[in-house]
């Protein structure tokens, strides 16, 4: 059942991914095309999710919008996560380094996500690259913290001592014993971070810091739609469906992955 769940999740994410990649082929319109007179129309055969306040086809914008979020979920999050894991693991290797890194992370973590987003955007200017930077910056300390606390826990377990007695190098022990035994929470966190990245992108556009118009993204489309709920509710439904599908997919994959990495089952 659990592996099947992973397959379903992968399928869902895969479909969204493919839809994003194939957006230029699938979308009936270019995302910026302003169709004359089509102001906030409801769903119709020509516009499945209706049109937005600037007469653009919502479906086309959602399809193209997926690309932005995919880039963030599949590039920014992994980049931030890997960097964070590297930082977190490295910091456990050395006492002084650990103190320095932890305090630096404290400083970073102490700024709420969105505040970081607001500040970074104000410095870099709004746009995709800024969102990318924000997501990376937000993820690094989270992963670093998480991996560190896991590493500290696992490091005390006896099989790590066993590897030390064998004469394995610290790096090897970290790589082969400690980190793999810390992956559980990291997997859960990765799935969450991927979801949260979509959310963060949306929140930034809610605060007017999102992608640079007229480029579409799921978050900014969703956010835009909220102002026109009574004119065209389908406008909100489009991006919501895709976001929900993505998040569900991530979650199913994570559930399957953590089940696969779990070392025992409850027997009672």
């Amino acid at each position: 059942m659990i592996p099947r769940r992973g397959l379903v999740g992968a399928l869902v994410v895969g479909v969204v991914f493919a839809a994003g990649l194939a957006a230029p082929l699938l979308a009936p319109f270019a995302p910026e095309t302003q169709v004359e007179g089509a102001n906030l129309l409801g769903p119709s055969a020509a516009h499945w999710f209706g049109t937005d306040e600037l007469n653009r086809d919502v479906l086309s914008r959602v399809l193209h919008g997926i690309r932005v979020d995919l880039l963030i979920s599949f590039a920014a999050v992994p980049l931030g996560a890997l960097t964070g894991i590297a930082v977190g693991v490295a910091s456990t290797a050395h006492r002084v380094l650990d103190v320095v890194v932890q305090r630096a992370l404290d400083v970073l973590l102490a700024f709420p996500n969105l505040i970081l987003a607001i500040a970074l955007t104000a410095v870099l200017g709004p746009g995709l690259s800024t969102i990318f930077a924000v997501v990376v910056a937000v993820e690094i300390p989270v992963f670093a913290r998480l991996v560190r606390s896991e590493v500290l826990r696992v490091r005390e377990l006896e099989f790590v001592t066993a590897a030390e007695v064998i004469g394995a190098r610290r790096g090897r022990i970290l790589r082969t014993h400690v980190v793999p035994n810390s992956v559980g929470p990291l997997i859960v966190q990765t799935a969450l971070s991927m979801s949260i990245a979509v959310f963060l992108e949306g929140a930034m556009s809610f605060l007017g810091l999102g992608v640079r118009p007229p480029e579409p993204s799921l978050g900014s489309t969703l956010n835009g739609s909220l102002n026109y709920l009574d004119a065209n509710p389908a406008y909100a439904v489009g991006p919501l469906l895709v976001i929900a599908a993505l998040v569900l997919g991530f979650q199913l994959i994570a559930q399957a992955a953590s089940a696969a990495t779990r070392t025992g089952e409850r027997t009672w």
Partner: protein
Amino acid sequence: MSGYLLRRVPSALLVLLLASVLVFLVIRLIPGDPAAVLAGSDATPEAVAAIRRELGLDQPLHLQYLHWLGGLLAGDLGSSYLIGGEIGDLLADGAANTVVLATTALVLAVLCAAVLGPLWAVTRSRWVDRALTGFTTAAVALPPYVTGVLLVLVFGVAFRLLPAGGVPPDGLADRLGITAQYLVLPASCLALPVAAVLTRFFSEALRGELARDYATTAAAAGIPRCRIVFRHALRNAVPAAVTVLGLQIGNLLGGAVLVEAVFSWPGLGMLVEQGIDRRDYPVVQVLLVLSVAVYVVIQLVTDVVHAYLDPRIRLGGTS
């Protein structure tokens, strides 16, 4: 324990100091000029320059910083460029509102995780599992500004069951019943994503604990399932959840920016956002340093909780 705390304090102070420098610099790195905001869009450049002089913005950065820090240390938070009042007064109101909102949300989230996490970890029912997967998906997929808008539309506008936003007109301390009604929507909205995240981590950690031999031993002794989950395994799973909760506090404060906006809840989130928006340096500086301080304290608490819960840390040594 107290020795441990004492050792942590200097580094916490260091973090605060570093953060204050960072806060100060970052805010000034942001392009935009408070004087220009003050002067308004139809002002002349000369007027702007005059305002800069008046606010002391024409001085070198390090002097500005030292001046501010000196003030802070002397207990003077400074005054807002825009609002004109003492920041201390300005914060008092907002802080009360945010603390109430965030704490309520935190309690809701923790309660939710405390109930759903174990349920999820223990259940072998497909339907419970699916329902929880669905719930956490929805809670993470729907950002607070969407849930907020929807909640307001349903409860505030369509059915008029609860206030659509704002704080109780006679203050939070007026009538608990009334305050609760104002709090329900924003607090749940803020709590939802945190609750989902916590539930996920907590159930995952619990599941791992329940598979361990000591839990089997307890089960073999005939200890009721509930008790194994809540008394025996919980304590082992809580540290991981506490780490995540510590990380989530930041999200909670960030989420407050959105939730406060959607529910017109006049708290610090709103103050920060507007402060940045209008380049009200003193306000933003103080607020950010404050949030760093809150965070540092929470980290301290997290560490203490870890140590308290795990005798191996508390007493040192492994067998």
